């Protein structure tokens, strides 16, 4: 096993809770809150590691605005354009490489569109689908109208055609997730729904309806990572990262992304478990996954070594179907796992697994990360 990395503080804000926020002002507030938890100050940050996307932020090189707000002024900085779990991995690698003792990971997903539009799920989806279309190759897939939603619908249709899951079962799973998360902190979909309501929701592309897709919402999540030595001279840590693994899935033209959409998750989990000394996923008490549709739940869970059928440890607050703040999703899943580990109470080691991926092209060419967390 390798050196543990401390999660010294985790804080979050959702855009709609901040009227007319300027992105860097929200980032400053959230990072300040995470630092207070850690008992650290802005000057203690050695490195700002961002996760954000220029096309959401409405400006090229948007990290220029955000880095100083994340404590990066006069410090080391970088930005991953991908799910924030990769920014966690990059920052943790920097700590292990002795490039930093304290790293501020901040995930920013505040689409710079009309505020009411951003708060409206269908309007926000229209925007993120446009950006997704611009992420597909400009000369082949984009003119055909490919988007994350279309890719996810293709996979769901394929799942139905193979007899692996009915559309009713998809609706049942989505309704269960949304209802389980509705009353919890940080949920985006705040009212319980029935499977019938999921089926009756506006359709995006058959067989997928709006309520089967991730609960897209604006959000900023900040995680303060620190070396073990440094955190012992601060307030202590909320949790440890024991190990992780990452892997990238297949591209649009590669056979297999429809039949085996979780191969990257499987590769990432294998690495993460081996590096964390986990022989059997039964050792895990908390599991946060990112299944972008109900049809992806069984393959993702099997890839994590679970049986794929209603494991009570998985997504106790509804997972990505309940709330999905864009690239901040991975950091939000970490926040939820840290909260859940703390809520288990004390006494002995307790482990959590966090699986995250982005939804820029649905399951296509997506990098998955699996992180193993340990109760402090």
């Amino acid at each position: 096993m390798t050196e543990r990395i401390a999660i010294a503080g985790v804080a979050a804000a959702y855009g709609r809770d901040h009227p007319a926020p300027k992105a860097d002002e929200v980032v400053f507030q959230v990072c300040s809150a995470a630092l207070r938890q850690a008992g650290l100050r802005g000057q203690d940050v050695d490195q700002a590691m961002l996760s954000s996307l220029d096309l959401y932020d409405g400006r090229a090189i948007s990290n220029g605005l955000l880095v100083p707000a994340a404590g990066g002024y006069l410090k080391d900085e970088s930005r991953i354009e991908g799910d924030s779990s990769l920014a966690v991995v990059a920052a943790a690698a920097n700590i292990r490489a002795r490039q930093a003792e304290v790293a501020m990971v901040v995930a920013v997903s505040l689409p710079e569109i009309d505020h009411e539009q951003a708060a409206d799920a269908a309007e926000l989806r229209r925007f993120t689908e446009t950006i997704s279309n611009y992420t597909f190759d400009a000369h082949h897939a984009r003119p055909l109208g490919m988007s994350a939603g279309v890719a996810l619908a293709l996979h769901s249709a394929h799942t139905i055609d193979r007899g692996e899951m009915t559309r009713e079962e998809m609706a049942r799973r989505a309704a269960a997730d949304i209802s389980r998360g509705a009353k919890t902190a940080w949920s985006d979909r705040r009212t319980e729904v029935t499977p019938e309501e999921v089926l009756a929701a506006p359709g995006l592309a058959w067989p997928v309806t709006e309520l089967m897709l991730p609960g897209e919402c604006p959000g900023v999540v900040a995680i303060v990572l620190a070396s073990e030595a440094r955190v012992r001279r601060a307030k202590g840590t909320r949790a440890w990262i024991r190990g992780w693994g990452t892997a990238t899935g297949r591209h649009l033209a590669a056979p297999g992304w429809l039949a085996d959409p979780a191969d990257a998750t499987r590769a990432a989990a294998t690495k993460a478990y081996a590096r964390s000394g986990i022989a059997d996923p039964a050792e895990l008490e908390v599991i946060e996954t990112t299944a972008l549709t109900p049809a992806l739940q069984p393959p993702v869970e099997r890839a994590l070594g679970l049986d794929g059928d209603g494991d009570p440890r998985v997504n106790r607050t509804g997972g990505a179907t309940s709330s999905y703040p864009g690239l901040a999703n991975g950091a939000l899943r970490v926040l939820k796992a840290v909260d859940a580990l703390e809520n288990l109470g004390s006494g002995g080691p307790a482990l959590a697994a966090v699986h995250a991926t982005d939804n820029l092209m649905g399951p296509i060419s997506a990098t998955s990360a699996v992180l193993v967390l340990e109760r402090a």
Partner: protein
Amino acid sequence: MTESLVHSVNWNIDYKVNLGRAWSRFLVSLRDDRVILGTTCGSCDKTYVPPQAYCEACYEPMDAWVEVPPTGTLEAATIAQHAFQGGPPAPYAIGAIALDGTDTLFIHLISGIDLSDQENARTLLRRGTRVRAVWSQERTGSIRDIDHFAPVG
């Protein structure tokens, strides 16, 4: 050798960018009062124009607002001879101005002199030149509510 094709590709995305507390107050003050506002950090005492909601050096919130005179000293200027798509018509001059009573350099357009005679304009816009804000007739809550800065005396 096969023919080499080129495609035209265009992005069309509309944004509504939130300016936040500090910049909104700054631009409203330009529009309604023709007054330049800055924020001063309670920790390091630096005054920022445009204002910021936080001091990035101290990593502390900033909420002390100060009125700044519309005058300053030119630190540097460059006279642009080429226009780009969607930009102002050339020639135009961009200056870095140390506004009186601030610790930052304010970037704005410099005008009020003949920019077509480049060598003469360079002399007129040398470092140390005093400049003053010239207000726009139509003010809309934009940085161009100050139309430009002009050399004085």
